[in-house]
């Protein structure tokens, strides 16, 4: 039918225009997002002389890895990396463990009535600067200043509200009948939680863990105030690169690339779960 063909052609025309808009929009967005990253990557492998040239060097003729070794050893990036990894992993594990139990308790037992759950979330509204000095003084008395344990504790506490709230939302939309079926089937509360609720909440747990980890991995302010010579984390090292007389752009870029790696690996590993977890369990069997 000719009219049908015409209509289809018109539709295809409209589609390709839509596509064009889409491609241009996405392209612009990607450039905006990736250009700084690209600049960081090539700066990390540029010889020092190529930093500030005009016109800029888009790709160095003699790429070098010297900035990486300098960042890792001279600037003690390796220690920062290890500290960051230990602190982030431990705080994430604690935050998700406690957050999951809290969220479950809010969702199933209405713990603390209507207000406790929101009060917990409202802790996120508190700017870190409001508590950092008391914490600093407290830590000094307890001997927790400049220790990994101190950072783990403060990161757990700070990331807990979001973990708990995410898990609360996740458990709340999970039909309680699933656990009730397990209770009638012969399991206790813990059995029902362990065998039924937790496996089903896994996407939510992973999403909460990713958020907690990214928070810990990138946190700067608490680390700046509460650490000095031994427990310092990656973000605090960058401060040292931007000096009064000279700036170590290559080393800063190299360390930035290194600090990106865990996030990228994590993102790739949990991508599938993350999307499911963030839709807050719209999945139902």
């Amino acid at each position, binding site marked *: 039918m000719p009219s049908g063909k015409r209509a289809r052609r018109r539709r295809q025309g409209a589609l390709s225009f839509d596509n064009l808009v889409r491609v241009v929009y996405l392209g612009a967005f990607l450039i905006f997002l990736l250009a700084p990253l690209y600049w960081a990557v090539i700066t990390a492998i540029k010889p020092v002389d190529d930093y500030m040239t005009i016109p800029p060097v888009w790709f160095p003729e003699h790429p070098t890895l010297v900035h990486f070794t300098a960042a890792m050893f001279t600037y003690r990036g390796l220690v920062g990396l290890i500290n960051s990894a230990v602190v982030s992993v431990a705080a994430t594990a604690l935050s998700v463990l406690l957050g999951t139990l809290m969220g479950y308790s809010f969702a199933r037992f209405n713990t603390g009535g209507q207000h406790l759950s929101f009060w917990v979330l409202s802790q996120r509204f508190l700017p870190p600067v409001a508590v950092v000095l008391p914490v600093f003084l407290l830590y000094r008395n307890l001997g927790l200043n400049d220790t990994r344990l101190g950072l783990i504790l403060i990161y757990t506490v700070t990331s807990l509200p979001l973990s708990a709230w995410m898990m609360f939302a996740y458990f709340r939309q999970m*039909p309680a*009948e*699933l656990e*009730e*079926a*397990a*209770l*009638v*089937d*012969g*399991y*206790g509360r813990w*059995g029902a939680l362990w*065998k*039924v609720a937790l*496996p*089903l909440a896994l996407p939510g747990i992973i999403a909460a863990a990713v958020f907690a980890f990214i928070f810990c991995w990138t946190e700067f302010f608490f680390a700046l105030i509460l650490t000095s010579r031994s427990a310092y984390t990656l973000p605090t090292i960058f401060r040292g690169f931007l000096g009064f007389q000279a700036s170590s752009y290559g080393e800063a870029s190299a360390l930035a690339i290194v600090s990106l790696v865990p996030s990228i690996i994590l993102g790739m590993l949990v991508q599938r779960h993350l999307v499911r977890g963030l839709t807050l369990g719209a*999945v*139902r*069997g």
Partner: protein
Amino acid sequence: MAQLKIAGLHKHFRGVHAVRGVDLDIPDGEFTVLVGPSGCGKTTLLRTIAGLEEADDGTIEIGGEVMNDVRPADRDVAMVFQNYALYPHMKVYKNIAFGLMARKLSQSEIDARVKRAAAMLGIADLLERLPRQLSGGQRQRVAIGRAIVRNPQLFLFDEPLSNLDAQLRDEMRSEIKRLHQEIGATMIYVTHDQIEAMTLADRIVLMRDGQIEQQGTPLDLFERPATRFVAGFLGSPKMNFILATAVESGGALGLQLGDGRGLALPEGSRQRYAGMVGRKVVLGVRPEHMGRARDGLQANGHVRLATVVELIQPTGSRTYITFPLGGTSVMAEVQPHDVQKPGDPIDIDLDLNRAVLIDPDTNRVI
């Protein structure tokens, strides 16, 4: 299998006094249906029996043992939930085996029991699927399989068919009835659907506002309702209610309707209704007890009414017509070809032997 005994049970649920002093005795092997409008407390009662809710007052005995403080896991009951509540992350096999695994049965015993239950329910070829790969009817079968495989003392069903379409519902209803006949276990079944209640139950327990309104066999409740509520709840289409005054003329009792008609009550009912003379009563008569009058002698208690058809609703096997009576519209059941079109005159035969009279002050059947 066991008997269930509930005494003086009270339960508040979300600020509502949901169960108010329920006493219930269910003998071993009986199929009991708790029925009533939504919010009448039937599901709360069932959940309290299962142990998912704690009783505020009263006792629950299963098999002679008080269960109030026993956790659901140890009450040896199985429950089928309205939304099936299959574990989405487990295959059908594991869904059914889950309760047996909790009881630490041997693998061979679990395997044998799961296969037997699956064969019984016709789901043997679905054991390796996940719940989301099943249709509604198949999920329902798995949920029932999960219950029967444990061979519990008591089966609890919470509106298990309400998520199925009409045809499947009929099918599953027969299947549940057959299942009960096969395994003969004590079953308690909650529904708001009076047809489900009538067809399945050995005994119906009709609940209203947290209390038992009446209990008995389905035909007991249907034919001898104790209250206006029971009379109106059971039966489809519903019973007609017509306001009337009880009168006495020439030694015989009768009813004076709002439109001036007089209906003579059957001989022999005098004793029962004598106290109501001069008072308002509500006449309750089911559509199937009014039909097109045939020629011939009028039997005792039958009344002939000349009226006009208002509305015709054929269903195939029978036709429902609406006509005015006593100032209201009532429904009668006639044969498919008894009526042609609205507005036609018709003679209705009303069987007062099967009608009930209700005291409008107490809403109880006299």
